[in-house]
């Protein structure tokens, strides 16, 4: 018997992982949640059939979405994470002793419960006393926040389904308002490669550019996401992601990583020509 998980990356491209067995399948109010075990990628989580994370490559995504803003901000204390019910971003954040509070806003409580049970490698720091979890629509939560966060990390799903509100201009504007004067927002920024993803990426970038004075994009290589070439948005009120970056200072923190390092930090902001062009088109 062969059991395969397959996701359509485009109407003409499929990506498949051979499944060892399925550990969980359930429906929440918002989406279908599945957990599988596989030989190649270990355990993995899918939402509505879309790959969210695998044990094998999640470190790339979580390190890059977390350490980039945390290393640029000179003194990040109050952090807001939107989405990220798998706990991966929280795991990385709790490694910073300077952080005083981490608010996590996840719309779907069941995602957190399932991840706590089946994905202990990511959902392992929810019991840190600095972590506060709110089960609410991120768009609604942030509307009430003003001038109170140093870093906001938007770890959204794709711009359709329950996460679509997290790609809107009203949401980015609310993030701007919720950040302090030197705050930074980092977001999952889709992929530049396939046409439909690229269009979503451009729409998202345009809205961020219109909302923040500094808006840059950086990249990482994530094997299980469509095309493997993934982008993150870096939006900031004051700090430039490379000019205001002090790699030595970050190294002194002694945080051990597997993907992120100071040289890669600078390099990640160097983008391929076609990506630069896509971004320029909407700036």
């Amino acid at each position, binding site marked *: 018997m062969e059991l395969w998980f397959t996701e359509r990356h485009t109407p003409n491209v499929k990506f498949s992982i051979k499944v060892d067995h399925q550990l969980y399948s359930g429906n929440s109010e918002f989406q279908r949640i599945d957990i599988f075990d596989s030989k190649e990628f270990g355990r993995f989580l899918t939402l509505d059939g879309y790959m969210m994370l695998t044990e094998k490559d999640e470190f790339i995504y979580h390190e890059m979405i977390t350490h980039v803003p945390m290393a640029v901000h000179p003194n990040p204390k109050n952090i807001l994470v939107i989405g990220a019910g798998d706990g991966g971003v929280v795991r990385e954040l709790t490694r910073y002793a300077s952080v005083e509070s981490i608010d996590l806003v996840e719309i779907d409580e069941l995602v957190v419960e399932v991840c706590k049970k089946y994905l202990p490698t990511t959902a392992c720091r929810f019991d840190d006393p600095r972590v506060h979890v709110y089960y609410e*629509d991120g*768009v609604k939560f942030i*509307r009430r926040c003003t001038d109170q966060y140093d870093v906001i990390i938007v770890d959204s799903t794709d711009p359709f389904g329950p996460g679509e509100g997290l790609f*809107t201009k*009203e949401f980015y504007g609310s993030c701007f*308002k919720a950040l302090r004067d030197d705050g930074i927002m980092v977001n999952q920024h889709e992929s530049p490669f396939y046409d439909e993803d690229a269009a979503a990426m451009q729409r998202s970038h345009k809205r961020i550019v219109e909302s923040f004075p500094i808006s840059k994009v950086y990249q990482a290589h994530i094997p299980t996401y469509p095309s493997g070439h993934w982008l993150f948005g870096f939006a900031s009120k004051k700090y430039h992601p490379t000019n205001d970056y002090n790699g030595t200072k970050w190294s002194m923190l002694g945080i051990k990583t597997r993907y992120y390092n100071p040289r890669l930090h600078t390099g990640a902001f160097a983008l391929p020509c076609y990506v630069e062009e896509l971004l320029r088109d909407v700036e």
Partner: protein
Amino acid sequence: MAELSQTNAPIYEALRKFRRMRIVPFDVPGHKRGRGNMELTEFLGEDCMNVDVNSMKPLDNLCHPVSVIKDAEALAAEAFGAANAFFMVGGTTSAVQSMLMYACKEGDKIIMPRNVHRSAINALILTGAVPVYVNPDVNTRLGIALGMSVAQVEQAIRENPDAKAIMVNNPTYYGICSDLKKITELAHAHGMLVLVDEAHGTHFYFGENFPLTAMAAGADCASVSMHKSGGSLTQSSFLLLGKNVNADYMRQVINLTQTTSASYLLLSSLDISRKRLALGGREIFAQTVEMAEYARSEINGIGGYYAYSKELINGDSIYDFDVSKLSIYTLPIGLAGIEVYDLLRDEYDIQIEFGDIGNVLAYISVGDRKRDIERLISALAEIKRRFGKDGADMLTQEYISPVVSETPRKAFYAAKRSLPLDEAAGEICSEFVMCYPPGIPILAPGELITHEIIEYIKYAKEKGCQMTGTEDINIERLNVLDL
């Protein structure tokens, strides 16, 4: 009829049966189930083209219904608590015109509020009926016209005992209701018919705790936009009749202007939507109201905006309020309603129903999702943060009482000349000027053009209202009577 119930949808069922019969079409429409126009068929879908058919024996005929349309109309009448119901395919406009043409012939008087939809004044042009306007009460803070006060209706009846009918606009676009029961009793006591433009009140018939419906109030005719809150296709509508209206004569009146090739897409959408509301309307509108109430409380929490509701009720010109409407007063944030309307679309990709000088209206229905409501609220909060200013010098007055100098029909057909807007003061207008939506005329044919009205038109244009009605598409000139 005994075997039919609200679980049936006779036109829909007949169409399904008809489709299975695979009749060979040597009749119109010429697209022949879509095969003759593949681009259109690909766009609209084969299922849609397959039921775009003409009247024929198994499908009945809207002009003279004897089978499935007759049954469907009987079921609709039952669902709405009416003596008779007509399926209308020319929009609620055609329903409004038919009920006016039923009630009045040339020279007959009809009492109506001036803030009616243009379709009612158009009907006056068609019939030659003479309007007796009751100026609606105005909420000067919000700048909106309210319902009809009973005292004013009483006065109009006293001064015009020969009037044939009273028309009531209930609820208004903003959700405001008049004392329909009292007005109906007054009118009937004086031998006048009561015609209700209930375009925005379909849900009153099916939800709980909504304001009184025209049929329950004992009114004689009601025009109901099923395609608004009822979920049917755009342009489909119901005309409802009370027990003292001659339905056979009404059919003849409707047929004066109605198409002889009524669309079965529209007819089936009315049939299916009536069934859906009759069976599940209570739940559907409970959800709608819950979303509207949530949005209202969140929007009022932003500050500046005022999403109004039942607290406006004053026992007379705001006798009741439709809580499914999300009407928001915007002037305190320093932006005209129309500006907020434009910003929502241009900056936030959110299209709402309309914006006027002081208000916006977001249309809430069962088709809305909670997360879209969150987006709307957040976008309003962001508009206030990014674009809000001091609201001190905003023009508030929305409703200007008109001076009627000629009947709409005489003015419309009279000799006329064109004048620049600024030179038109003191003349009698021969055309409509209105913002659309909401489509309530600022000027109607036969009304005196005043400086105040010219200033208002210029202000509305400057703020970006979509103005319509005039022959001059740019509204820089007005047609006036050449006396």
